[in-house]
């Protein structure tokens, strides 16, 4: 029965997959079959059969590990000795983590603003034009691919060859620099701009999301408002400033906060493009390094907790803004 835990051939893998699905169907079917007697089963048993599996899984696989992580963050490298908040002070005041925190802050500020701005402008520009569908699809597609794939696409754009006679640049961006008469750059190595070049990748991915949500919001603006504003002589930029943006404010808040939360947790891009070297490290990737490379249990736990704590103000802002806009309505 070795293949149950280490399936190696293609046949074994698919057999295992079907076995898992069948097992799952049988278990769920049995649970539902047992409670399928309208009058004889008390209601709480039915509720437990429906909601129980989800709640148990979440309690075991998300809540319990989160509490354990919080607990571990107060212990040392090996998890033996209680050291209070030392891990946190080390992250927040230690020299090596300063650039990690700064970089994360730059990411969380730049990515949402840039994606939302470009997405909004683009959504307005292509709104109700003949090419709307195609134009949107072009910007939307990066959302479908993995961040690993996106990182490779952009790493190729940033590719650098030494500036010598006879050597041609194969990265598009450096070729553009050469064409306009500048020297090719090592975009991913030269700090601090390399962080910005990594951020470009995330903006490239997230703009499609911003555009889709904002475009739907723009289309939901009542025609009377637009019409009235137009009769008052508003057009172009002023229409955008005084009608479009205020009308879609709630959608803007949701887009900004959703992207900010996603950005906070992103580590794929940094890991694939620079591995966190050259001063590009962020919290999410530092967590991975500490947890699985350095095997520093306490520190990695503290980093995970910090990640969680940083999400909270963004969510609170989101909820408060939505409450406010509901009151106005």
């Amino acid at each position: 029965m070795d293949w149950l835990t280490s399936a190696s051939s293609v046949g074994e893998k698919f057999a295992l997959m079907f076995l898992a699905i069948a097992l799952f169907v049988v278990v769920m079917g049995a649970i539902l079959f047992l409670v399928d007697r309208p009058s004889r089963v008390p209601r709480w048993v039915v509720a437990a059969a429906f909601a129980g599996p989800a709640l148990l899984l979440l309690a075991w696989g998300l809540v319990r590990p989160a509490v354990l992580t919080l607990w571990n963050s107060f212990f040392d490298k090996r998890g033996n000795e209680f050291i209070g908040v030392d891990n946190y002070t080390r992250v927040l005041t230690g020299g090596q983590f300063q650039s990690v925190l700064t970089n994360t802050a730059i990411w969380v500020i730049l990515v949402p603003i840039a994606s939302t701005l470009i997405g909004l402008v683009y959504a307005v520009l292509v709104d109700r034009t003949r090419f709307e569908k195609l134009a949107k699809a072009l910007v939307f597609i990066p959302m479908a691919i993995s961040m690993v794939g996106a990182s490779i696409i952009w790493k190729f754009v940033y590719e650098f060859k030494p500036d010598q006679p006879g050597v041609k640049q194969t990265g598009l961006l450096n070729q553009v620099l050469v064409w306009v008469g500048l020297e090719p750059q090592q975009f991913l190595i030269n700090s601090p701009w390399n962080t910005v070049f990594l951020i470009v990748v995330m903006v490239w991915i997230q703009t499609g999301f911003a555009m889709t949500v904002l475009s739907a919001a723009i289309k939901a603006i009542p025609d009377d408002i637009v019409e009235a504003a137009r009769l008052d002589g508003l057009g172009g930029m002023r229409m955008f400033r005084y009608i479009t943006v205020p009308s879609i404010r709630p959608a803007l808040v949701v887009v900004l906060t959703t992207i900010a939360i996603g950005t906070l947790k992103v580590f794929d891009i940094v890991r694939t493009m620079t591995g966190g070297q050259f001063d590009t490290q962020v919290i999410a990737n530092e967590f991975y390094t500490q947890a699985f490379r350095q095997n520093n249990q306490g520190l990695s736990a503290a980093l995970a907790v910090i990640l969680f704590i940083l999400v909270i103000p963004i969510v609170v802002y989101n909820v408060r803004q939505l409450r406010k806009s509901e009151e106005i309505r």
Partner: protein
Amino acid sequence: MTTTPLPPTGPFAEAFEETADAGGEPGRQRRLSRLERRAIATKGRLSSPWASFAAILIAILWTIPSIGLLVTSFRPELDIRRSGWWTVFGGLFNGEAEFTLDNYDQALFGSGANLATYFVNSFVITIPAVIIPITIALLAAYAFAWIDFKGRNLLFVAVFALQIVPLQVALVPLLRDYVSAGVAGSFWTVWLSHSIFGLPLAIFLLHNFMKDIPASLVEAARVDGAGHVKIFFRVLLPLLVPAIAAFGIFQFLWVWNDLLVGLTFASPNSRPLTVAVAEMAGSRGGDWHVLTAGAFISMVVPLIVFISLQRYFVRGLLAGSVKG
């Protein structure tokens, strides 16, 4: 919480609708003509050269990097090292441009890359990791929407709040459990982890859709003597197909494209494509011929799913993010 309807597909679809039911009620007629006027006015704005220029510039900037990767993946290794991919467009005219499938052959079956194996792994990981959370979340969403039990609201808020918990806080303790249970690195752990991590969003989304179904339908079935199981399967499930599709695509893309969970829980034997390709980018960063082909192999399936089922994806996106 309400879901936002899909955006209309553009002025042309609406104009078409108008001709289709010409002679409909006058109110509708007036609304559409106003829409048309607005469309014309908007078009007037776009004919400003700067606006068109900006739109086209963004579209080009967003497309060119992917085209570069795609073109490169079909060029011979030596050409890739010697010249930029844009030179093929000149080469097309004088017949110097060469294309090959060697890179794909090497990426899929070459001893160093062997992505064919990981392609299989990605499928084996993704299919159960989509089916299991959807099923469990459907049942839970039904309980939260239509079964009255004590503590229901509190539990639902708790599940809703779990959406914001970063995966990172759960990884290390879970991995430790898997190791001590002797199942670390197997597909089981990857399925289980993905299922758990997908649940909060799934329950929330499906609950939103379920709440939108008129209560009278459920009541009618109840009067007819149907229990919760029958109501769930006979009444609600057929109506929820679009919602299931929407979340299904979401989860599919998320699992297929995931790196963190695969990296943490999968063994070299069970790792998905993303992990293998990321590894390749680290160890063979200069081998652009294998790397471009490999990257494209990892993107093909999500691209097909995404493009063919875009409608549902957009609906899920709007339902999940626009709360109002």
